[in-house]
């Protein structure tokens, strides 16, 4: 039992370092294709972190929808736009901006991390077999969350109509 917990902590550390490093690469890379490819690494390690806390259905959804659909759409658009180097903004003071914004954000996140470390949130990891499976999530979705589910379907319809209307050429 103890060795399994240790193993989980080691896997968590590796995935956390992978996610943080690839997201830093994502916001600092100059060309958008580099940031898109490193963002895929972030998304897949976040999906593996979902799997580590028994969220098996969300693990699958994250990989299929985020890494499979949304990032593929971004890569497809980057390829389709045929971006040259002169189309990119020349961010002369990019490193200065990144440094300044980091100094701006750092106190807030330090306060939040301090609060989390000081609080006494309990650790009772659930070992129920069915927790996080598609049956469990589906039962909760269709019993307590029916109205948000329907609203999301309306939102998806609006996004569909909006994207078709936007990308239509107005002659």
């Amino acid at each position, binding site marked *: 039992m103890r060795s399994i917990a240790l193993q989980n902590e080691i896997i968590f550390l590796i995935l956390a370092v992978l996610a943080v490093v690839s997201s830093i690469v994502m*916001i600092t890379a100059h060309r958008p294709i580099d940031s898109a490819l490193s963002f895929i690494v972030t998304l897949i390690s976040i999906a593996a972190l979902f799997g580590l806390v028994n969220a098996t259905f969300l693990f699958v*959804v994250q990989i299929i929808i985020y890494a499979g659909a949304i990032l593929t759409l971004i890569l497809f658009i980057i390829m389709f736009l045929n971006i040259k180097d002169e189309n990119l903004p020349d961010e002369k003071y990019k490193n200065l901006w990144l440094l300044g914004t980091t100094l701006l954000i750092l106190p807030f996140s330090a306060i939040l991390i301090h609060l989390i470390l000081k609080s006494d949130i309990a650790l009772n990891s659930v070992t129920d077999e069915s927790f996080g499976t598609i049956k469990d999530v589906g039962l909760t979705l269709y019993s307590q969350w029916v109205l948000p589910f329907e609203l*999301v379907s309306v939102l998806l319809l609006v996004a569909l109509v909006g994207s078709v209307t936007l990308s239509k050429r107005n002659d």
Partner: protein
Amino acid sequence: MLKAYMILSIILFSIGMVGLISRRNIIVIYMSIELLLNAVNLSLIAISGDLGDSSGHVMSLIIIAIAAAEAALFMSLFVVLFRKKGSLDANIFDLLGSKYES
């Protein structure tokens, strides 16, 4: 383990916020917004697994659906703006607030 998840979520959210504020490339700005959503999802899933309540899973499922809708709209906006302006610089896209005819 829950505290570690929360701290990782805060760090990822801060990195996304830094990218959102300081970059001018709109594709990177879009991916920073996605990183913010993912950080929130991570903390929701961790809390949900800790409490043994699958409402957090449903919430992050809805957030992923909203992110997919957002992706479709952003992509068509990218195509339209790039066709009109020929650049990915967010400073050029001032169609609502510009004094000059472009």
